[in-house]
């Protein structure tokens, strides 16, 4: 068998694929953050909590009302999105003109409250959610066993990521959004309801997080603290990609998944650190991030 640095190529290709799948989660989550920061300049520290809410809702809706996976895939993000709109309307709007640090602290506090209350109710051992019937089992690719569900995750994530990028960069609605944040007074003069756009954008951003949460529910243990663990990594991804850059978030998310996956083979102890190492290097060389525009 051919080897690279003492690791068989077959093992390495399996790890690359898995890295890409994990990267799909990072991409989805950092995309939501990037949309919210890029358009609203809000550093959304409750993003992890919304991701967790998406996963938790999937489980709770199934356990109490028997809502199946496909319904949850739409319902959970929708509910979380509405919560997001309410949060924007009642809380974030009040401090919209203050320094970024205020929205950071507010969303961070909110995340702690949501997480704390749910920990009290559900504990942290984690809840199980069965993989949907159609995705049970997997396929042997020769170099690895690929569960069907993981394949679905990467397809679903990439479709949603591309759709979001297309909507913001290529459609009329997207151009309104970008213009509204650039010069909201002028846009309002044109008769466009900018505050509504802002609410909807925040709601959409957290919907992406909840969508990632639903995708995660069958494969990770669903606990109220699952969002806190992933949030910091996702922030690092956004910083590496360039704060607010849509395409940067997607590409960096996938790339960091792969880098992390390879680290797990060559030096597993550093797997949780490697992304931050990359972040430090990128900030030293290109402070605006890989895809960021220099201010």
């Amino acid at each position, binding site marked *: 068998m051919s080897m690279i640095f003492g690791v068989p190529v077959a093992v390495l290709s399996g790890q690359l694929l*898995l890295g890409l799948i994990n990267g799909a989660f990072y991409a989805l989550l950092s995309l939501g953050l990037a949309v919210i920061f890029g358009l609203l300049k809000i550093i959304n520290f409750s993003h992890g909590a919304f991701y967790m809410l998406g996963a938790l809702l999937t489980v709770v809706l199934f356990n109490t009302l028997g809502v199946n996976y496909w319904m949850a895939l739409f319902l959970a993000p929708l509910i979380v999105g509405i919560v997001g709109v309410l949060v924007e309307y009642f809380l974030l709007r009040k401090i919209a003109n203050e320094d970024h640090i205020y929205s950071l602290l507010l969303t961070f506090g909110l995340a702690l409250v949501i997480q704390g209350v749910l920990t009290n109710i559900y504990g*942290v051992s*984690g809840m199980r959610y069965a993989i949907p019937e159609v995705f049970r089992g997997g396929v042997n690719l020769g170099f690895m066993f690929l*569960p069907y569900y*993981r394949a679905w995750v990467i397809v679903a994530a990439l479709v949603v990521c591309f759709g979001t990028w297309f909507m913001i960069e290529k459609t009329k609605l997207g151009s309104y959004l970008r213009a509204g944040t650039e010069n909201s007074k002028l846009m309002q003069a044109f008769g466009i309801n900018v505050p509504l756009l802002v609410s909807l954008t925040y709601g959409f951003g957290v919907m992406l997080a909840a969508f990632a949460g639903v995708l995660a529910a069958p494969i990770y*243990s669903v606990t109220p603290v*699952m969002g806190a663990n992933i949030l910091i990594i996702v922030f690092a991804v956004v910083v590496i990609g360039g704060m607010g850059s849509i395409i940067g978030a997607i590409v960096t998310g996938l790339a960091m998944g792969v880098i992390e996956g390879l680290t797990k*083979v060559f030096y*597993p102890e550093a797997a949780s650190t490697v992304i931050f190492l990359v972040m430090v290097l990128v900030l030293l060389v290109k402070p605006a991030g890989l895809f960021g525009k220099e201010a």
Partner: protein
Amino acid sequence: MNLMKKILTAAVASAMIAGTAQAAISNNEVRIGYLADMSGTYRDLAGPNGLTALQMAIEDFGGQVHGAPIRVLSADDRNSADVASSTVRQWVERDNVDMVAGMVASSVTLAAVRILEQNDKLGIVSGSAASSITNEHCSPNHIHYVYDTYPLAHGTAQAVVQEGGDSWFILTADYAFGHALEADVEKVVLENGGRVIQKVRHPFPTSDFSSFILQAQSSGASVVALANAGSDTTNAITTAGEFGLTQSGQTLAALLLFLTDVHALGVEAAQGIQLTTGWYWDMNDETRAWSDRFMEKTGVRPTMVHAGIYSSTLHYLSAIEATGTDDTQTVRRHMMDTPINDMFAQNGIIREDGRMIHDMYLAQVKTPAESQNEWDLYNIVRTIPAEEAYRPLSESQCRLVNN
């Protein structure tokens, strides 16, 4: 004059007696600090319900000891050695806490007991697993009560090797506990004629284990052992199921599984897994009766850690009652001299290294058909006698043991 002298002497003497009686219980109050992970990965196996178990013990003891009230303080260590150090320091130096109970993550425990030793206060460790706590890190100021990595390795690993699992892949949580468990397991595997093909250490905590499971699959080992705990273990087991690890002929051995973990996994996913435990709620009438009371208060069945916190607190309070003092060394000596016989342990003995030795149990998770209700989870396969389960004193590196 002579009479006056006699009266004075008597007065002074009685004052001295009264004085010592008062000083016997410091601050006229016994203060117990409960330190545990109250909100993170290890919350459910000890956490807030461990505090309930502690309070149950105090209630059952009558709310006071040797005439002095008992006060409980509690804190969340957030699985951080730094937080644990500063909390325990504050407790012993400012709040005059006499005994610290709970303690889960081994790194937290090692930090806490160091400060207890500096201040000559007592620690009763119920949650932690690292056998090093009473081996190279032993001290005259702490007792390790419920279990440790030595019986975990001996119970489970020995059973698996003897069933023919001779080549091992060990996946280890990268901190004190994981390292201790890995070392103990490797020793058992080698002693029983097996070999360890590969050892991989994962960061603590890890949520995605797919990469490690893939490495385990390509290692070709017949046994994949998980030397981790809590959600790390349950995540790894779920992922192993998803990637068809056991279908391809590999055996999965979880070295530390708590009742709450198995409950979270469900019997469907966890059936057939062998594990070593220090206690199980459904062993006899006594354990069931206590567990029913516990469940009334908490809504869940107790883990071995919960039961151990209850038992050790009663044992501690009984020692104060018997000796009439909360002086650390007097109480510890009495605890060591008195065997433990309650719903948690039969003939449990605290050795000079601080290790409480008692029978351990090799259990197997029931199948969905066998399990009568959501907490009906284990079949006890074998009782491992205390002397066989724990590291013999002759192998001890503890400085309190004369070797």
